[in-house]
């Protein structure tokens, strides 16, 4: 059996100095290759904290985070950065594109993150990734001139261009109208089915959650059940 793309073992996260606040209480979670899962829960339940730990943007107080078969708690900052570039794609609520770069250059940055130079091949792959999300003709556009839905599609192309084993999406449709949200969701679903990339989607939107293969519910820092 292949390694899971993500595995959390007894992950605890605490914040604060004198007064400690425990945000996550011993989370165990496993996400297999090709899974399409929603992470839901009320505000303050620890979703963002969990996503930061899974995204290797933060370290747990205790427990282990394994990404694509690699244990991460002993890696230094540079090793975490390299693993992030190699194994994880990010889609954020507000798309977070770099305004100084064109749509294609934004996508290229995912390929160039751990490389010294930009190459023609990177450019070709970036334009191809934009074509996959239906934006082939907008490759050289300033992303600030694109609609919200289009910007989120550029962000999806950026997250997927390296074909990482896992894409983390933080409220990817939260800022879009219903139609654009459906388009974006359909796009992610399509990539999941065609390429086998696993998705972990943090969402408040029940329409999105119910259309995922699996829903992970987090309440008060604990996973309360794993209905499918």
């Amino acid at each position, binding site marked *: 059996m292949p390694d899971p793309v993500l595995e959390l073992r007894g992950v605890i996260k605490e914040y604060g100095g004198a007064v400690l606040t425990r945000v996550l209480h011993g989370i165990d979670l496993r996400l297999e290759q090709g899974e399409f899962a929603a992470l839901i829960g009320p505000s303050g339940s620890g979703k*963002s904290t969990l996503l930061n730990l899974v*995204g290797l943007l*933060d370290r747990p107080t205790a427990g282990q985070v394994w990404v694509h078969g690699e244990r991460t708690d002993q890696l230094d900052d540079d090793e975490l950065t390299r693993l992030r570039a190699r194994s994880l794609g990010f889609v954020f609520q507000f798309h*977070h594109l*770099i305004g100084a770069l064109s749509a294609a250059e934004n996508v290229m*940055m995912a390929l160039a993150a751990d490389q010294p130079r*930009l190459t023609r091949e990177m450019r070709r792959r970036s334009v191809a990734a934009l074509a996959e999300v239906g934006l082939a003709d907008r490759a050289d556009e300033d992303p600030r001139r694109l609609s919200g839905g289009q910007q989120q599609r550029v962000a999806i192309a950026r997250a997927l261009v390296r074909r990482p084993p896992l894409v983390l999406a933080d409220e990817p449709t939260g800022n879009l109208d219903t139609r654009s949200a459906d388009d974006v969701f359909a796009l992610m679903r399509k990539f999941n089915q065609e390429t086998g990339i696993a998705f972990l989607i943090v969402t408040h939107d029940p329409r999105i959650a119910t259309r995922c293969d699996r829903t992970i519910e987090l309440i008060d820092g604990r996973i309360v059940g794993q209905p499918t």
Partner: protein
Amino acid sequence: MWVDWFLALRILRDARMQTLLITAGVAAGVTVMVFLSSLMTGLQVSLLHKTLGTQAHIVVRPAEERARPLLGDEVVRRVEATAQRTRSIDGWQLLLTALDAEPAVDAVSPSATAPVFAVRGNGTEAVVVKGIVPARFAGVIKMTEHMVAGEWTVVGRGAVIGVGLAAKLGITVGDRLRLQAVDGTSELFDVRGLFDLGNKAANEVWVLVSLRNAQTLLDLAGGVSSIELRVADSFAAEALAARLRGRTGLEVESWMAANAELLTALRSQSSSSAVIQVFVILAVAIGIASVLVVSVIQRSREIGILRAMGLSRGRITRIFLLQGGLVGVAGSLLGSGLGAALAVAFSRAVTDASGAPLLPIVLDARLFLSSSAVATATGLLAALLPARRAAKLDPATAIRNA
């Protein structure tokens, strides 16, 4: 293209107005540095040229005569200082040979120099006669460059005088001039040439004649009253003078000791120029740093995204350092051009009646290179703080707080 350069250039291009403003700030700083330095160096070179063009770097004279009480200090209550008379340097030929062999010395000129009177008709002027060996003297002071009438010929009865003295006595080339020593001895000379050393005192009092004639006039048969030297490195003159003083026991004076006030003035000028430049650099550094700090704050979300995508902290540091460096280089190029243009324009605008520049400037490659190096280093250093700040940004916080 290198990823770091690409991102640095794109960020600078995206924030055009900020980039233009800080580049203009650096350019203004470099302009001031280049303009000020070219002017200061020009003034100093010109002043030194004028000063050293009309005087020897080192003058060796006999040691002062001192009256010594025969009965000892405890008996004599007061010893009167002796009036100094024109005397010859003992064994000057040997000293001349030794000085000729000195590698640091370019030219050595023995001279019999003393105050005399120049008489023509009813006019009498107190002057200084300098008996010289023409070829040797021309090595110390480039006389041929200063001749304005007649020729540089100091042989036989020939004499060369300054334009000031010529005007005072109404003499011109071809006229005769009588020189009368303090003991009444007098000699008649033919004025063969007029010089203008750009120095009023020298122009009005120097009368250059052959060494032999001066020795006769001054009753210094076979002797010289001073030996004048020109050295390769004019600023090493004082060190050499001190060495010669110790070795010979003679009175040895360098141009630096003779012009101590000028040197002090030049040093003060250099110091004040350096202080101005330090403050200019400081202002440029603060300007670059503040704009880049604002840029880091404005772009913290984007920096967070780049970090999340896998750009290392080191790379983020380099991207912001490069921005500082690039602004430094661009500002240096612009400022060097502007500074040079301003200096040239200023020098052309401020001229004397003949159209010659009153304020000479010196624009050499070293000035541009040093100003550009300072500005670029300032850009890099000023970017260090914002770059470290950018690299330290926690990506999760940066993305969440955006």
